[in-house]
């Protein structure tokens, strides 16, 4: 049963990285397309659209951080692998789910808001502050699941 616990914990780490990563990849990719469109008309917008493109990338980073913590807590990184019961493994898996799914959805939606923001900046470059603010608001819903995952991973005995 020890291996099952570890396997479940690793599944959790994998979920955190994969799903949050997919959210970020979709979001950043979408904003990248919009940015290319804006820059092909006005290359001076690069600095402004770069910030918008970076924003949906954070979800992947949050998923990565949670996965690293799971690897540290289970001793995989240090090579001193902890013995986990299946319940403990399941707890790690459950702890990873908030950032996995929160990251997936918030990454996609933040990408849409940021891509719309790029279109706004392309038409009215002086509105970049507002575009960034609107896209940043979605970040809140990536930070919340990240915090929950973070706290939960640390509280598992």
């Amino acid at each position, binding site marked *: 049963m020890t291996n099952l616990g570890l396997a479940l914990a690793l599944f959790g780490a994998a979920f955190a990285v994969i799903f949050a990563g997919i959210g970020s990849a979709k979001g950043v990719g*979408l*904003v990248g*397309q919009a*940015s290319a*469109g*804006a820059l092909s008309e006005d290359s001076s917008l690069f600095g402004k659209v770069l910030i918008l493109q970076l924003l949906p990338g954070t979800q992947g980073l949050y998923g990565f951080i949670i996965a690293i913590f799971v690897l540290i807590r289970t001793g995989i990184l240090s090579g001193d692998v902890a013995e986990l019961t299946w319940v403990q493994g399941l707890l790690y898996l459950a702890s990873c789910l908030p950032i996995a799914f929160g990251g997936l959805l918030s990454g996609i939606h933040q990408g849409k808001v940021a*891509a719309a923001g790029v*279109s*706004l900046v*392309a038409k009215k470059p002086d509105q970049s502050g507002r575009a960034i603010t609107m896209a940043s608001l979605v970040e809140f819903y990536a930070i919340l699941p990240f915090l929950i995952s973070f706290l939960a991973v640390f509280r598992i005995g």
Partner: protein
Amino acid sequence: MKDTDYAYAVARIRANEGKLLTGAQVEALTDAPSFERALQDLKNLGWLADDGEAEISAIIGRQNAALWDLLQAVVPDKDDLGALTALNDFFNLKAALKCMLTEQDPTPLYQMPTLLDLDALTENVNAHAFDRLPPFLAACAKRAFEAAHRTESGQSADILVDEAALRFLADKAEETGSDLLREIFRFLCDSTNIKVALRCARTGKDLSFTESAVGPCFALEKSVLCYAAVQGEAALFNYLSATPLSGGAALLKNSTSAFEKWCDDTVLEKAKAAKYVFFGFDPIAAYFFAKTAEIKTVRILLSAKKAGVAPEIIKERVRALYV
């Protein structure tokens, strides 16, 4: 195609929307003391080529070509543009058929933009190879050619092509997943049908002719429209006054150009809904209508300036703006 596949296109289009003429710029052009001054102002706004070409048709042609180049460069699927150019495509078919019958070169008559290969259109129509035309034109071209031969008149061919164009647009209105395009195409069908019905009323056509000339209707009742047209102009306007297009009909009573302006302005008003859409084809279609209206405004403005028309009269003719 997903709406998000248009992210690149929409961002480029938004950047170009920022370059559309503003109300203040159009007013300054209208108030310009001379044609030369208006040209100079347009040059400052980037409308004139470096070679200083001042022919109105050349200026307008270049703007149309630039618009079309941009749209073709940005859309992920060129078929999307087909509906926007459909009326030009059918017009070009009419020109090719007419010139084939009168043994003339149709090239100067062709309207742009179009997705058709115009050389191939001329060649295939001249060779009566209608099945080699794009599928949406082939059947109608064949029928129009046969009708022209049978009646020895271009009028019946024109009616067939015009009606097919409206039917095509009506089909597109139903097929499109876009509410905006559906509304615009439906409006274009209805407004064109009003013009067709009025022409029938003024030339005293009978019911069967009128019914064959009028295309699918949406806000109008086709049978009532045709019947009213046969009764005469007064009956037609009486019917139209009770329809959602009564505003335009009231203008049409006195002036065709006022009605044309009303149609263009209504399309642009509907297109403005796309200002709040950031994905999909709607913002691209809206830009097409906006830029087309802008080009039309500049053409009217320059022609009027050249003819020495007073600014007050020009202001009545210029189209509404998108920005």
